[in-house]
């Protein structure tokens, strides 16, 4: 631990203060020994916790709790999520195991020097709405609920569950914001099933962002339905549903679990077949709404507007119950997504065990030539994970990439199998990621849930709320990109109100390293906002066409789609009528084409899993991958790792989307080498700009070509050879805002060195794309940039473009000004992830080290921003930088805004051009 961190530690973080305020005496451990222990170990001198905090923290002893469950030892409070408590065969108590790990392992000198930060968050007690110990009323729920919950050991509802039940009864639309494992699904299952218990009629529709979540919730629901003695036809309706089950659900289903894609493509267009559902629709549940953002979110918002419109025609006005993980704007987001006034319930009443968060930086090591480099996060993670497992600590490891998941599993297995005493543990560790077969994934989920597995290494595939039972520790290998995602993943540990452990092992990305240097900055950062724009003309236009297919559109429909603005709706519809997409008759707009518009409209930017992976000559399928991932990891000669086993790719048939592999113990793995290019296809708009060779908006093709691959030896990471690849490039036809920095300015900037110029240009792009989402109402993940020499491209990561870079073109000056303001007001000395450093590792083509490690990126960015804004030349402060010169390298109706009209036209063209790639769900 460096002295510097001691110094910093004198400033207690708001986050820690907030956390520590929770009650101590009510900690679910019978006596206070755990807290004492935790305080002792976390705050112990050897681990250097913030001394000032320890002394001054107003640790209040709150009033004695209304302990509901008798002796805490057998109090299954965590079961308010109705999960059975998995038991570990080990006789040890995981609490003491986590504590022992903190005490014994982290204390070791070899570990302690990598640990940059330890933070302890004390336990939080359960919160209830009523004071009564015997809450016999159960918020007015049916007596069958009451006896069923009591059988499950639940005698009272947590405050957020109670508030949800009350809010729904009062007829409000409700959004519940709570952490993983807080009994969130009961918030919607309670009122919905209660309605079925009491009324015996009506219908409910549950929407989950993924198929796996729907399946998972179906299992929970089945348990409730049986336990309550309800006779209720409920089922999952998605792309995997068998035809006979589809028919059955259409005819008899009362509670349908599905996903937005299926609603969009199957249920809404064929609403006639679901007449019963739409006529009697009482509740719509949308889970994990925080993940319904960006382009996907804007699309789903329109699907929901279509759903409400159809339901209205059948005479139903359903109530919404939605659940979200922590984001900074739950109310705004839910209201914009659903188009309803929402009641927010954000006081999570579930109990929480104490939690220790550790920031761990892999060591700097010296190369033979004397230069230093930082070891990768896997080097630490693969060493720590076996130690956790050996102590019986149930752990989930999160990696950023699928390939890292496989590498980590392999390395940890090697380590465990290499020792007689730990050999048996290898069977208790599995990997989990997209690309495995569904039944393989279900099996891993089941084994995790039952406690058969002690650990799992996963990508973000396990980030959303699939119930995998209680875990004790979470190992984050690399920064996940956002605070919200970090918290989601960390929330996977600590389900059972026990002491949990979160270890964040930093990668070499600038943001990882920044947080290692400034851990308090991380804890002060609030989770990101979810942003959507349902009225984005590109998105709205496509959904209006789908809506017209479902029922002819009239101007009355402005209430659903344009917030009541009839002239805007008329303008768009007339344009569509002129373009021949719709036909106008008797004041209504009809869809008259033979084809099926919803098939052409994709809700997501990510493709489907469609490469099938065969092992051997036969028909044995071992996995499936989406198109882009398939090209990037299944090129001929690649080593594809599946659950730690290496396979040699013998054949990749791109046309038929088949890969043939053979098992091969290669001793190495492969990494694709990529080259990105942007080609301007058609200029759309152009305007003059000071100090730039004009600002342009064009249709472009972004091509990512796999130029070859390198072979990397396991463990040593030695480069042992190259291979060639002949594959079609991955093409993205989209719209880009682009400009060229004029030669004069390039030369002026180069006087400070070429790194100054390029680092500055990257800094400008990061600032610009970082702030752009607020100006264009988009999600950062849907925007990317590319620098080609002195030309900058900022483009929409969406086939055909979605209007983001177009809006940025319109608001260019505003975004530039905001960028400069932001750089000026950021109080970091030289540049940080909040300003000029990238916030995540989504850039496929790595920067050269010279640019990446330029010590004053903010100064360079400010220099260029001043120039682009036509301000006085900025004098950069480059103290300490080696400045040795280096070598240089249709007519709308009057009501419609012409800009909107142009977008609608482009969206129509896009639909014709890109629409043919249908997705099968």
């Amino acid at each position, binding site marked *: 631990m460096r002295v510097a961190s001691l110094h910093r530690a004198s400033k207690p973080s708001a986050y820690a203060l907030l956390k520590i305020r929770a009650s101590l005496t009510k900690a679910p451990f019978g006596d206070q020994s755990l807290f004492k222990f935790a305080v002792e170990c976390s705050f112990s001198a050897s681990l250097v916790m913030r001394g000032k905090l320890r002394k001054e923290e107003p640790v209040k002893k709150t009033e004695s709790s209304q302990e509901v469950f008798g002796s805490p030892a057998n109090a299954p409070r965590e079961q308010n999520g109705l999960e059975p408590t998995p038991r570990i065969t080990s006789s040890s108590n995981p609490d003491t195991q986590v504590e022992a790990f903190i005490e014994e392992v982290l204390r070791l000198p070899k570990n302690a020097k990598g640990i940059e930060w330890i933070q302890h968050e004390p336990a939080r007690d359960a919160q209830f709405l009523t004071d009564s110990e015997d809450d016999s009323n159960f918020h007015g729920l049916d007596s069958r609920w009451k006896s069923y919950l009591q059988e499950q050991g639940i005698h009272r509802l947590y405050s957020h569950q109670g508030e949800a039940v009350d809010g729904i009864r009062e007829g409000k639309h409700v959004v519940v914001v709570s952490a993983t494992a807080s009994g969130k699904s009961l918030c919607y299952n309670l009122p919905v099933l209660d309605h079925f218990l009491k009324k015996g009629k009506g219908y409910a529709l549950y929407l989950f962002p993924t198929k796996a979540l729907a399946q998972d919730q179906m299992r929970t629901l089945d348990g409730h339905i049986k336990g309550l003695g309800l006779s209720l036809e409920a089922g999952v309706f998605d792309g995997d549903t068998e035809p006979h089950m589809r028919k059955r659900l259409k005819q008899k289903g009362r509670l349908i679990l599905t996903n937005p894609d299926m609603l969009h493509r199957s249920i809404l267009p*064929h609403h*006639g*077949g679901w007449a019963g559902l739409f006529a009697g629709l009482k509740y719509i549940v949308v889970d994990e709404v925080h993940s319904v953002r960006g382009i996907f979110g804007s699309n789903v918002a329109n699907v929901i507007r279509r759903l409400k419109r159809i339901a209205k*025609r059948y005479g139903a006005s359903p109530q919404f119950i939605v659940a979200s993980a922590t984001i900074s704007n739950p109310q705004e987001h839910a209201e914009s997504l659903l188009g309803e006034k929402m009641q927010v319930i954000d006081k999570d009443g579930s109990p929480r065990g104490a939690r220790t968060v550790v920031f761990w930086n892999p060591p700097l090591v010296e190369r033979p030539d004397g230069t230093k480099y930082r070891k990768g996060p896997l080097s630490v993670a693969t060493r720590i994970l076996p130690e956790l497992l050996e102590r019986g600590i149930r752990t989930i490891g999160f990696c950023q990439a699928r390939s890292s998941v496989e590498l980590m599993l392999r390395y940890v297995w090697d380590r465990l199998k290499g020792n007689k005493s730990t050999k048996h543990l290898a069977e208790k560790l599995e990997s989990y990621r997209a690309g495995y077969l569904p039944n393989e994934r279900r099996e891993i989920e089941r084994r995790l849930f039952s406690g058969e597995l002690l650990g799992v290494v996963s990508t973000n595939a396990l980030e959303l709320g699939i119930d995998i039972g209680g875990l004790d520790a979470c190992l984050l290998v690399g920064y996940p990109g956002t605070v919200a995602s970090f918290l989601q993943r960390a929330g996977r540990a600590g389900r059972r109100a026990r002491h949990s452990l979160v270890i964040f092992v930093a990668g070499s990305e600038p943001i990882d390293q920044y947080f290692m240097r400034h851990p308090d900055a991380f804890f002060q950062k609030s989770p990101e906002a979810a942003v959507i724009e349902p009225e984005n003309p590109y998105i709205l236009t496509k959904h209006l066409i789908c809506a017209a297919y479902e*029922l*002819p559109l009239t101007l009355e429909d402005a209430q659903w789609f344009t917030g009541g603005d009839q002239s805007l709706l008329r303008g768009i519809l007339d344009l569509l009528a002129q373009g021949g997409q719709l*036909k*106008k*008759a*008797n004041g*209504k707009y*009809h869809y*008259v084409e*033979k084809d099926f518009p919803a098939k052409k409209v994709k809700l997501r930017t990510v493709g489907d899993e469609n490469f099938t992976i065969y092992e051997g000559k036969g028909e044995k399928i071992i996995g499936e991958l989406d198109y882009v991932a398939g090209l990037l990891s299944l090129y001929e000669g690649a080593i594809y790792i599946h659950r730690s086993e290496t396979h040699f790719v013998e054949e990749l048939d791109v046309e038929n989307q088949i890969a043939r592999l053979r098992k091969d113990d290669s001793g190495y793995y492969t990494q694709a080498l990529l080259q990105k290019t942007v080609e301007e296809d058609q200029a759309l708009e152009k305007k003059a700009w000071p100090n730039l060779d004009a600002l342009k908006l064009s249709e472009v093709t972004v091509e990512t070509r796999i130029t070859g691959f390198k072979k990397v030896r396991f463990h040593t990471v030695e480069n042992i050879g190259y291979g060639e690849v002949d594959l079609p490039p991955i093409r993205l036809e989209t719209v880009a805002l682009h400009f060229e920095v004029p030669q004069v300015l390039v030369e002026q900037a180069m006087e400070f060195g070429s790194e100054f110029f390029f680092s500055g240009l990257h800094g400008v792009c990061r600032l610009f794309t970082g702030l752009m989402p607020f100006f264009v109402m988009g999600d950062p993940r849907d925007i990317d940039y590319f620098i080609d020499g002195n030309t900058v491209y900022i483009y929409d990561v969406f086939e055909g473009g979605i209007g983001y870079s177009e809006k940025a073109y319109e608001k260019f000056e505003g975004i530039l000004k905001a960028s400069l303001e932001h750089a000026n007001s950021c109080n970091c000395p030289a540049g940080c992830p909040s300003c000029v450093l990238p916030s995540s590792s989504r850039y496929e083509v790595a920067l050269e080290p010279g640019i990446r490690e330029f010590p004053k990126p903010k100064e360079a960015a400010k220099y260029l921003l001043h120039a682009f804004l036509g301000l006085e030349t900025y004098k950069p402060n480059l103290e300490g930088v080696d400045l040795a010169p280096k070598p240089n390298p249709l007519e709308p109706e009057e009501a419609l805004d012409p800009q909107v009209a142009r977008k609608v036209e482009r969206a129509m063209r896009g639909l014709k051009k890109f629409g043919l790639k249908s997705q099968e769900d």
Partner: protein
Amino acid sequence: MSELKKSSWLRLSKKFKENAALNRASPCPAEELTTQPSEEDPFLRHVEIYSPETGGFPSDLFGESFLLESFQDLCSGEGPLVFWDLETSGLGDVPIFMLGVLLYFPSQPQAFRLEILTAKGFEYEEALLKEACDFLSQSRLWISFNGRSFDYPRLKKRAFRYDLEVPECEYHLDLLMQVRRRWKHDWPNCKLGTVERRLLNLERGKKDVPGSEVPERYNDYVATKNWKWMEPVLDHNRRDLVAMAVLLERLCEFEPGFLKDVQSAD
């Protein structure tokens, strides 16, 4: 159906043919009133009157012209009758583009009025359905062939799209059900064409379009606005309607009180 009864049916069919031959003796062209549509008209309206004055049912339907002389005696007493038949642009929840009705008013014995409306585009389905609802509400007895399980549910489903109210009928006589009840076991199928051949001694010419071609022809018409695609479809619909009237007369002829019986039995 017993053998005996069946043979008597055949005998009677022959007699019908003779009657028809008699009618042929006084040929008179049917009046055709295809109105000249204005641009705003959502559909084309084709009207024909079949009466002794106009020469009865014309020969282009089934090869010879004829009158249903005893229709008045056998089938009336029920107020106005509406025979109806829809054409749709395919299977599933797809638009209705053609409505054919054959109206019979007891006040004008032996006279039928045929009206066939064709929507000029898919966007005019709504106007067509409105018209259909108006026609249907004129009568308390509807007669169709497979209308109970096809035309009526389809009409309701499509009308829902436009928020239109479809009238309910006091009695909807589905002739297909009646035919099935009687000849299901004797005939390979109970399609209208089979009924015409086996029961009514009528034969459609080779010109009759198969039902499967109908949607494609309408698409071609909408795309080209050339009426030639639709002519055979219109004839198909005319024949269906007229065959229904002939079939009803047959049934009433063989089973006196048929109309009363089916209504009370159902």
